[in-house]
C-alpha cells in the first residue's frame, strides 16, 4: 500500500471510552513472584528522582544524588536510578555529586513550568543547563499557543530547543493536564516527535492532573505509530502522581504490551517521581524478607 501523502496525514482521533477500558484491562494484570521483583528493579532503574522546589538548596540536591546512586544500602544488588532532575541553577552541584556514577543528570528549562518566558531566554536557559553539565533537558511547550491552534509556533519552538540542546537529550513536556482532551494529547505528541523530541513527557508535576495511565497510553500509541512510520524510537516519561510500586508496575505492563520489550529499559522509559522510590524499595524488601518494614527504615531525602 502506498503511504498517504504528508499533506493528508493527521493524528488519528482518540476515543476516550476505549482508552479508559483499555487502561482498566491493563490494571487487571496481576504481577507476581519473579516477574514482580524484576519489574520493580526495572522501575527503580527508570526513576528520574526529582526535586523542583523554590526552597531547593545545594545540600538538598546532594542528598538526592546520594540516594540516586545507592537507593538502598541494605541491598547493594539494586541498580542506581535513571537520572536526577533539578532546576538549572542546581545542575553544577548535582553534576559534581553524580560524577562517574552513571546516573544521568536532567534539568528542567525553558521557563519551567509555565513556559511563558521569551523564546530567547528559554533557549539561553537550555544552553546554560547543558553548559553546567546536564545531559538531559526537560522542556515545556507553550500550551497557550498550542490551544490557540498555533501548531507551527510550537513545532518551531521544540525544534529550536532541540538545537540548543546540542548532544543533550530533549524531553518535551506536554503538560497534558492543560491540554484536557486525548485528541490534543495525541496531536501534541505527534507534533513533538516530528519536531525532534527524544522523549515525550506528560507533566511538570506542578498541577493536577499530572500523569495518568490513560494519557500515558495515548502517548505510547503515538510513539508506536511514529516508530512504525519512521523507524525512530522515542522515549516516554510519565511524571507526577505516580506514588506507589503497584501503579508503577501497571505502567510497565502498558509499555510492555503496547511498545514491546525493546522499550523496557531506562534509555526509553522513565518515571518522573520522588516518593515512588521508597515504595519500590519497601516492596523489594518485602519480597526479600517476607515482611513489610516501617517507613523509618528507608531514607527520606
Amino acid at each position: 500500500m502506498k503511504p498517504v501523502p504528508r499533506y493528508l496525514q493527521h493524528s488519528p482521533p482518540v476515543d476516550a471510552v476505549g482508552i479508559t477500558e483499555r487502561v482498566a484491562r491493563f490494571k487487571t494484570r496481576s504481577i507476581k513472584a519473579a516477574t514482580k521483583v524484576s519489574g520493580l528493579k526495572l522501575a527503580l532503574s527508570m526513576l528520574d528522582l526529582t526535586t523542583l522546589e523554590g526552597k531547593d538548596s545545594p545540600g538538598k540536591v546532594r542528598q538526592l544524588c546520594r540516594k540516586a546512586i545507592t537507593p538502598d544500602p541494605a541491598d547493594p544488588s539494586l541498580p542506581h536510578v535513571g537520572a536526577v532532575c533539578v532546576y538549572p541553577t542546581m545542575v553544577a552541584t548535582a553534576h559534581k555529586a553524580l560524577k562517574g556514577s552513571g546516573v544521568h543528570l536532567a534539568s528542567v528549562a525553558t521557563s519551567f513550568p509555565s513556559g511563558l518566558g521569551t523564546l530567547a531566554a528559554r533557549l539561553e536557559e537550555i544552553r546554560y543547563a547543558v553548559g553546567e553539565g546536564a545531559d538531559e533537558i526537560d522542556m515545556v511547550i507553550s500550551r497557550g499557543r498550542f490551544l490557540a491552534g498555533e501548531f507551527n509556533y510550537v513545532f518551531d519552538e521544540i525544534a529550536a530547543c532541540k538545537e540548543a540542546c546540542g548532544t543533550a537529550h530533549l524531553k518535551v513536556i506536554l503538560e497534558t493536564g492543560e491540554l484536557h482532551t486525548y485528541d490534543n494529547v495525541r496531536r501534541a505528541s505527534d507534533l513533538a516527535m516530528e519536531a525532534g523530541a527524544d522523549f515525550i513527557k506528560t507533566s511538570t508535576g506542578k498541577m493536577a492532573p499530572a500523569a495518568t495511565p490513560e494519557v500515558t497510553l495515548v502517548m505510547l500509541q503515538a510513539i508506536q505509530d511514529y516508530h512504525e512510520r519512521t523507524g525512530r524510537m522515542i522515549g516516554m516519561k510519565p511524571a507526577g502522581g505516580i506514588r506507589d510500586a503497584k501503579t508503577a508496575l501497571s505502567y510497565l505492563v502498558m509499555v510492555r504490551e503496547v511498545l514491546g520489550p525493546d522499550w523496557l529499559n531506562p534509555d526509553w522509559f522513565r518515571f518522573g517521581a520522588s516518593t515512588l522510590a521508597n515504595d519500590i524499595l519497601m516492596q523489594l524488601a518485602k519480597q526479600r524478607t517476607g515482611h513489610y518494614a516501617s517507613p523509618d527504615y528507608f531514607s527520606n531525602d
Partner: protein
Amino acid sequence: MAAKKKNKKATVAPSPADNRDFRTGELYAPAPEARDHATIEARYDLFIGGKFVPAENGKVFATVNPATEETLSEVAAAGAADVDRAVAAARKAFPAWSRLKAAERGKYLFRLARLLQERAREFAVIESLDGGKPIRESRDIDIPLAAAHFFYYAGWADKLAYAFPGRNVAPLGVAAQIIPWNFPLLMAAWKIAPALACGNTVVLKPAETTPLTALKLAELIADADLPPGVVNILTGNGSTGDALVRHPDIDKVAFTGSTAVGKRIQKALAARGTPHTLELGGKAAHIIFDDAPIDQAVEGIVNGIFFNQGHVCCAGSRLLVQEGVAGTIIRKLKRRMETLIVGDPLDKNTDIGAINSRAQLERIRELVDSGVREGASLHQSAQPLPAKGYWFAPTIFTDTAQSQRIVQEEIFGPVLTISTFRTPDEAVDKANNTPYGLSGGVWTDKGARIFGATRALRAGVVWANTFNRFDPASPFGGYKESGLGREGGLQGLAPYLHLLP
C-alpha cells in the same frame, strides 16, 4: 477460616528456579485465583419443589473442566418423569406466587441478587472451572452482570403497571427455560429474573457441559427461602430439553442457543401456540470506517471476537474494514494478538481460556479447515497453548469472500474473518448479507455516520465505538434467524406477561 484468610494474603514468593525477567517479554509468573473457597460436591441432584432429588431413573453424567479434561462432578440426568415432576411443582407453586404481593416478589429477587454478590468469588471460580472462561471475565463480567439482572428485575416487580401504562398485566404461568453453555449463570439470570418478577414460575434447564453454577444458584434459591417450586432446575442433555419443551403443561418457552435447535423448538410449538422467545445464533458485522479511532477500534475488534473464546452469539465475527485503513488495522491486530495470553482460566492474567467442549473444538477446527480449503489466508497467534485440555489459538482470516462458509456460518470460536469495503453503502450491504441479525458494530469519528449506519443495519443490537457491552436495562435480541423477542430492559418483561386491556 483463618487458613483461608492467610491463603488469600500470602505473597507469591519468587522460587529460586524461576528467573523470568519482566524485561524479556516472556509470560508473566503464574497468578492463580485461589480455589479453596469454592466447593464443588462430588454429586449434584435435580432441584425440584425446593428440594434436591436424584433423577428417577438414577442416571448421572459427568461435567468436566475443559482446561484439564478432569471430571469436576457428577450431575443427575433428568428424564421425562423428572420433567413431569418439575413442571408439576412449578404449576403447584404458581397460584400462590403469582398472587403474592408484587413488592414481596421483588424482595425475594433483591435477596437473591445480594446473596449472589456475597458469594461472587465462589461463583466466578466455579464458572471458570466448569466452562473454561478466564477468571477475569467470570469475576468482572459474568457474575456482576448476573447479579445486576436480578437487581434490575427486582425493581420492576411492583412497577409492572407503569411498564405498560393503560394495560392490565397477568403472568403467563409455568415458564420452560433452556439456556446455553457460553454464559451459564448470566443466562440463568436473564431467564429467571424477569420471569419471577412478572409472577411466573420456572423450570430451567442449564446446558449439559456447564450445569454447576445453575446448581449453585439452586442452593442460593433455597437459602433465600423462595417458596418451593417457584424455581426448578433440571440438568440433562438435549433430550431433557426436548421433553420440557413438549410438556403439555407449560405456558411459555424461553430458549437461548443455536438456530438449528431454535427451529426445532418452534416446530414443536407451532401446533400449540405456546408463546416463546428464541435468542439464537449470529454472525455480526463489525464495521471500521477509515476515520475511526484506530487503536481503540483494534481493541474493540479484540473484545468483539476473542471475548469468552468467541463463544458469544453476538460476537463481532465478520470484520468489515474500509480499504484505506485495512493494512494498518490488520497489522495492529496481529501485534495485539501476540499479547493475548491463552491458558489456565483461573490465572488472573489469562485473556483467552479453554474451548468449552471437545465437540465445540472439533466444530471450530472443521470450519477453520474449510476456510483454508476455500482460499482464505489464515493467521494465528504464535503464543503457546497448554498441552492438555481444549484450546484454540486466536485466529484471523484475510482474503475472505462472502461466499465462504467461514463468512456465512457461525463459528462460535476465536476466529475472525476480515473483508474490506470501499463505501458506506457497500459496508451496509455486506453487513446485512447474512441470514442472521443479532448484533453489529460501527467505528467512526462522525456522529452522522454512526446514525446512518446503525439505522441501516438489520440487527437487534448495534454498538458504536465499542463492542460487547451489556446492561440489564438494554433490550437484547435478533432479526431474521437470530431469533424472536427481546430479553433485558422493559422490553424483556412483555414476553412473560399477558397484556390485557
